[in-house]
């Protein structure tokens, strides 16, 4: 990648850093929901631990799952909101008349997603240690594998959502929240895939997130990292990334044909 390209990606990341630097409620909001979710599921786990042998065997499984679900959710929002910020501020036309290339915009959104997700999840993960005597960091390097796969899948979903918002306008912005929640039941965050109806299981296995959560349970319950799940998630992610990038570039061309790049904003 050329240095001029890196410089433009850096400029866009700087734009979002400026936005957050000037607004502490935005930073607080990033950490707020992951922390609340973690507390609710942590307390529920504690309550169930006395009655359920399965939960008692791995009392942190729900907390680990909820933290990783937030990685997926925040990864998606990180990309989608970075894009929506440009549309809300009617900045998209300005950006695309600068030498910024669409693929550089995508790269900047991915970096923003990584930063937003990490800033959002880290406080919740740290708070789980004194609250529930559970450290997700104890998972070791498999945590990195889970984190990377979920963050990437979330970002890919965010890119697909951004494409739809670019194509259909801000009326479609709620998709940033809706689509990822639709994936939650079939990602099997808190239960094994076998719980799903048989006809739905192939759909679940087609999602990288399902392999990550199955892998998480295998690691926590059986103390065994499943490289099969990891590699499958990685492969699926690569496929979805190519599809989402193609969709974004195709919608960008459509936007250039239909004149959508100037007519955006509230």
């Amino acid at each position, binding site marked *: 990648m050329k240095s*001029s390209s890196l*410089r*433009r990606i*850096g*400029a*866009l990341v*700087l*734009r979002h850093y*400026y*936005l957050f630097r*000037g*607004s502490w409620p935005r930073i607080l909001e990033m950490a707020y929901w992951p922390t609340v979710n973690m507390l609710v599921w942590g307390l529920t786990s504690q309550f169930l631990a006395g009655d359920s042998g399965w939960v008692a065997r791995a009392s942190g499984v729900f907390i680990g799952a909820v933290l990783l679900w937030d990685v997926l959710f925040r990864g998606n929002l990180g990309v989608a909101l970075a894009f929506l*910020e440009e549309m809300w*501020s*009617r*900045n*998209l*036309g*300005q*950006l*695309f*008349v*600068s*030498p*910024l*290339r669409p693929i550089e915009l995508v790269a900047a959104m991915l970096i923003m997603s990584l930063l937003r997700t990490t800033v959002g999840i880290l406080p919740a993960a740290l708070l789980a240690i004194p609250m529930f005597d559970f450290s997700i960091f104890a998972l070791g390097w498999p945590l990195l594998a889970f984190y990377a796969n979920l963050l990437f899948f979330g970002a890919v979903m965010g890119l697909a959502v951004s494409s739809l918002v670019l194509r259909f306008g801000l009326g479609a912005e709620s998709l940033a929240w809706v689509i990822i929640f639709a994936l939650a039941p079939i990602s099997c965050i808190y239960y094994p895939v076998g719980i799903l109806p048989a006809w739905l299981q192939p759909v679940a296995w087609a999602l990288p997130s399902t392999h990550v959560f199955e892998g998480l349970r295998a690691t926590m319950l059986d103390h065994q990292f499943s490289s099969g799940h990891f590699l499958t998630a990685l492969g699926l992610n690569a496929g979805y990334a190519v599809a989402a990038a193609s969709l974004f570039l195709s919608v960008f*061309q459509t936007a*250039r*044909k*239909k*004149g959508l*790049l*100037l*007519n955006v*904003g509230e």
Partner: protein
Amino acid sequence: MTSEPQAVRVENLAKNFGAVQAIDQISFAVPKGGCMALLGGNGAGKTTTLSILLGLLIPDGGKVLVLGQDMVHHRFRVLDRLNFSSPYVDLPHRLTVRENLTVYALLFGLHRPRQRVEQLAEDFGVAEHLDKPTGRLSSGQRTRVALAKALLNDPELLLLDEPTASLDPDTADWVRTRLEDWRKKSGAALLIASHNMAEVERLADTAIILKQGRIVEQGTPKALIDRFGRANLEEVFLHVMRSPEVRT
């Protein structure tokens, strides 16, 4: 760099939006260092033409060369040499003026963004507002910031859509003077879409009047005034807009 003598060359440009013919086979050229104005009522095709020239919109037919490059297929070869300002776009309101200009300075690959930002802020009278959020500025101050952004990369071609819309007469005059000075100094070409005929008479070497996506009149402001025997360009414009026939 290219030996192309024209900053802009448009041939038989056409663009439809569904059944609406927004641009209908128009051709024109802006020489390097020249200033052309696009005039026309609402929906005449001015903004559509500017969008095509910027590469934001793909035409259905015709040829568009900007600084010698085909804007449909090779826009990235010239985007660092042109710039624009339009009321249809904005800068993020929550960022300060300095932050917004710095981001765009970096996007345009400027090596000393800080000095350039401060110099332009001084030139456009917004130096004291550099650390204020852009959204807290008046519309006149925001227009000046948008123009500062448009000159960050010292463009060889500047496209302006309604550069003085919503400005009071004093500020509008101030902006026109700045643009004249900048053009004299830089030798850059300027293409403006405007409803303000006094502005066009003052800034433009040539003017094109668009109606229903077609060029119905063109010439120097003085030649147009003489041709129609009117006192000023505004009277010419009103006459052309109100006449039923569309010359092709």
